[in-house]
């Protein structure tokens, strides 16, 4: 039970921006990446998403680098709060199949990204499988919906 509480706490951290995402506003106004991820109705091939994530380059903006992703990245590294969202979007297909399988590299990293450590990781991955029908209610479930569903699944457990 303790572990679920921990995980729920982590999810709570992610949840506010998800709630915004469901509300229809662009959750990250002024953030290019978020716009592509959620404002673009998810109908783009994944390449476009990837292209958008590459906007933020490494290093130093004093060197004349300007990007539209300042809300999303710290000088090219994806901000933590957005990290789960970006990860879920880019790896949605892999997550869909590995959550069903209850194992795999992508779900393992995802659990770690959500804050699970050590023993908690296989437990959380197994929870992905057990609650698959709620997390991915349809085959067209988007990454934002998936994260929101996951958030409520894990909060309910707590």
């Amino acid at each position, binding site marked *: 039970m303790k572990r679920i509480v921990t995980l729920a706490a982590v999810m709570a951290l992610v949840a506010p921006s998800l709630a915004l995402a469901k509300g229809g506003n662009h959750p990250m106004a002024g953030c290019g990446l978020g716009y592509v991820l959620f404002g673009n109705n*998810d*109908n*783009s*091939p*994944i*390449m476009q998403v*990837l292209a958008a*994530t*590459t906007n*933020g*380059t*490494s*290093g*130093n*903006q*004093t*060197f*004349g*680098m300007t990007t539209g992703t300042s809300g999303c990245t*710290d*000088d*090219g*590294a*994806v901000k933590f709060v957005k990290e789960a969202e*970006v*990860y879920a979007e*880019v*790896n*949605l*297909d*892999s997550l*869909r*199949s590995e*959550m*069903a*399988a*209850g*194992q795999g*590299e*992508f779900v*393992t*990293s995802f*659990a*770690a*990204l959500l804050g*699970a*450590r*050590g023993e908690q*990781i*296989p437990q959380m*991955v*197994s929870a992905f*499988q057990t609650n*698959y029908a709620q997390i*991915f209610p*349809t*085959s*067209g479930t988007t990454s934002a919906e998936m994260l929101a569903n996951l958030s409520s699944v894990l909060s309910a457990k707590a």
Partner: protein
Amino acid sequence: MKRIILLIGLFLLPATGWSERAPEQQAAVNRATALAFDKKLAERPEWLALLHISRDVLFRRRSSIDDNDFFLHPRGRVDPHAELAATVTAFVTEEVIDDESASCRYPARYEFLSKEMDLPPASACARFESWKEKLAPNAVSMVFSSYYMNNPASIYGHTFLKLSRDDYEDSGPLLDYTINYAATTNTKNGVLFAIRGLMGGYRGQFSTEPYYVKIQKYNNMESRDLWEYRLDMTQAQIDTLVKHLWELGGTSMVYYFFNKNCSYQLLPLLDVARPELGLAKQFRFRAIPLDTLKAVKETPGLVTGENLRPSHTRLMLARRSQLNDTEIRLAEAMVLDPSSAPVKAVAGLEPAQRALVLDSSFHLLRYRSGFYRDQPPAVQALERRILDARRAVPAGIALPPPPIGNVAPPESGHGTGRVGVYAGGDKRKSFQEVTVRGSIHDLEGAAMGYVEGSQLEMFNVRARYQEGPDLYLEEFKLFEIISIAPRDRWIHPPSWTVRAHAAVAHDLEKDPDHSLVTSLDGGSGLSFQLAPGLIGYAMWKGDVEVGDALRKGHRAGAAAHAGLLARAGRAFRVHAFGTATRFFTGDVGNRLELSLIPAYSVTRNFELRANLRRSNGHQEATGGFNLYW
């Protein structure tokens, strides 16, 4: 005397407010620059590496970075002394104490100089520190992405760096960051990209992306293997590399396809971390990613570990090999048969076998539908039922790992450049032939480290000396790409070829030094694995030729082209092929060409080869050797 030169140098500095500087500050600047001069810091490999300075194509000593924003001195690109003096001055006179200060803009330079002299304490660099914290690498790898399936043009490969994070040990390497150098371009047109790329028409920049982005792109969308090479670097060296990456930031450089490309620009970074490596200077004229990888691999002790992350296709085939015939048909039915029959049949399997069948089904569905969002409803429904059946298998069931087997790593292949010396004869006289080839691999070459049945040749020149005409050009090949990809139960790639070259048209049976014909041909067909080590193929081709040797100056036609590619062991190969061409326009007529090419690799880079060839009435035989480097 030295001091006088130095003082003159100082007058040339663009140092802002030099006249306004307080006398004691000016004295500190003078002391520091004099010390830097006495210690010859500007000639140290560390400093030259930090500026990316090496000899260019014209043997001029200059930085490959042509962005003036990267340098503090207007002549910093070509003058490491001036740049050093300007940098020392900036550090000594630093007044800004936040992210905009010189020590925050150039943390790696500051680190280098602070070891050599007393500098004022570095500023607090909040932005740099938070960025560094985010990457927090404790290991560096070079990653090589190998070839697209069925696209020999991608044989050059691509390289990038990967920074591994210790604190994510539980999560595996997916959350690592990568350091990638790429041309900034909006064109999707490959030809335009190649032409502008050759001429330096683009600018390149470094970027960071999570490794999972790369994996989705290369492993899945493009189905390319990723080879990871862990590099031997201490934490201090890695920290220096990270500091230098920050210095580069958004700095852009002219992108040259041949020598200042994605893989070259990684080498100065490694040189910064370990200046004694001197990797960048090995690649002045030509930097093929495969060669830069080899240079890294062949540096003693530099690579400490190697790992293959298989492409989606390789993984799919490995998974399939764990199924028996019935199970393979079941996996196919889950993808092809929308009725409920396969679902029921799968449900009857033991859990572990059920999981393997369903994983294979999923891979096959992805392979057939591609890695794109918004799949048609029918595909979504098929995927859903595979995954619904899959989640009924408890997570605890252990599955055997996919048998990837021993895949020859790309650096195990023969060299990318080649020279050959041959002797031969035709009906008239004997001749000698010398060939030089720019790149990279042909069907008859040893396939180890490459892909069997793939060919990418560029800039292949063959010159012959034969009494009578004396010296003449036998062939200049701009490029020839061949993909002989055998059909598989699940994979149905077309085999195809395209070639642009100028060659002696021996079928005309004229003086070879007066029968050079320029041609463009290409076509597609099918190939089959007839037996282990034996591939057969057949193609239709179109052929357009122009040249003064032709009576009407041109001819165009269609051809049937077929061949056998046999391999015995790793060393011996035979390629036999024939082409029957009917020219409909211009010089109307028929041409029948036959070739038999045995090749034997004595060592990885030394190969014996013969060629028995006829073209209508012309017959010739050659034999000789090829040296790869």
